[in-house]
């Protein structure tokens, strides 16, 4: 169910074996199309971890092509009906490009930095951030336990969970909510 994509290798394999930088829109589009092919072949639901650790530079245009358009397609379910995406191995400058892209699309993605810390990149209100943190800490949790964990009215937690599900930042499994990191 979890699939890892080393985007540095993918770049060298699909575009040019001399490149280590994710720059320009045509490069980003070529890489995204390869990722989409992989996603389409996965069983549902699927979690795809995109690893940036072997990527040098990531510019805004390429971040838009690779991550922005990919996640926009996942959210609108034009790529696959039940796909989730995490990114890892991102440096500060990668995060800056990703954040700019996420703001444009009003999307968010969970990212693990090269320091090993997880963070949410993109616009997310405080309520959703608190609930997402709690789901991450628990790994798998039902709503009533989550209400206690964040000490917030049930209706507010439910609204936050709906927002997180719509943004595909948590998974639903029967009556439980599952953090993406826990199924990596």
């Amino acid at each position, binding site marked *: 169910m979890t699939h890892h994509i080393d985007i540095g290798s993918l770049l060298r394999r699909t575009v*040019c074996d*001399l*490149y280590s*930088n994710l*720059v*320009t*829109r*045509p*490069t980003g589009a070529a890489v995204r199309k390869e990722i989409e092919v992989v996603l389409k072949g996965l069983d549902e639901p699927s979690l795809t971890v995109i690893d940036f650790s072997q990527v*040098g*530079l*990531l*510019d*805004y*245009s390429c971040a*838009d*092509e690779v991550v*922005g*358009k990919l996640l*926009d397609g996942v959210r609108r379910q034009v790529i696959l009906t039940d796909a989730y995406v995490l990114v890892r191995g991102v*440096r*500060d*400058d990668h995060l*800056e*490009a990703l954040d*700019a*892209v996420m703001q*444009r*699309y009003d999307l968010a993605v969970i990212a693990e930095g090269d320091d090993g810390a997880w963070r949410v990149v993109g616009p997310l209100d405080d309520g959703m951030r608190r609930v997402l943190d709690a789901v991450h800490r628990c790994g798998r949790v039902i709503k009533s336990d989550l209400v206690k964990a964040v000490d917030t009215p049930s209706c507010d937690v439910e609204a936050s969970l709906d927002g997180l599900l719509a943004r595909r930042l948590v998974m639903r499994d029967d009556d439980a909510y599952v953090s993406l990191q826990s199924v990596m």
Partner: protein
Amino acid sequence: MTTVITVPPSLDDETFEQVFEQVAAVSADQKILVDARHTRWSSPYGLTALLTLGQSRAEQAAFAGPEAEDTASYWARAGFYRHASEIYEMHGKVPRTREAPTESNVLLEITEVARSDDVHTVVERIQSRAQAILVHELHLDPQATMRFAMTLSEVCQNIVEHAGQGGWVAVQTYQYRKRLGRRAVVIAVCDAGLGFRRSLESTPGWKPRDRWDDAAALEDALVRGVSRYRDPGRGQGLAGVRRFVGKWEGKLAIRSGTARITIVPEWDDAVPLKEGLPHFPGAQVQITIPERVPPA
């Protein structure tokens, strides 16, 4: 009849306006001779804009380079003559473009940008030298190196995506005595293509507003992040460039058509939006990032 265009002794983004003014008075199919014999110094903007000027002419222009040997030699090492000899009909002494060592202040010699692959080449080349110069000589934060390369990538992509023809990029450091009194790294990116106004006018369904000219187009692109493409992810490149320039107290100036828009830092007194300039096609961009002075 050939019209002589006199290049000023010191050539930068401000003095190049004298060149634009002379050229604007001569139709593109008329022969011109660009006379730089008495020019002693040029910024990267001046060199890339000279190449762009040659490209903009329907009738091949003639070019006479600096008579001062050190100036001509420097221009050769910056890569100017290699490209100029393909664009201009060269007059006078042309320095040999041999395998001379690159100047220590040249981060990127004049490089043609016409395709996406060229942007990859530019980024690969700059990364190897940027760290040493930006961090150790200009005292910028190590994090600035990657952002600098991102900025360079985005401004070069503007040529590929919007100009409709190739352009030129160069990156150098120099002592910016006139305004700063310290060193600065300068990116110059020039093309003679569509320009911002015509690029935005090519948006499907575009209709002119009450006020629509080169200045309005520059404001749309730089201030409002408008792009001719409708994708939500478009327009981020220049926004990212603005953020980088703002963070490092830099200056960003974009000239297109008859207008120039400038993000003005505290150390400069440029006019934020200048209109009514002599017309020149395409876009000419200059980014200046000053040396960081450690707190006393």
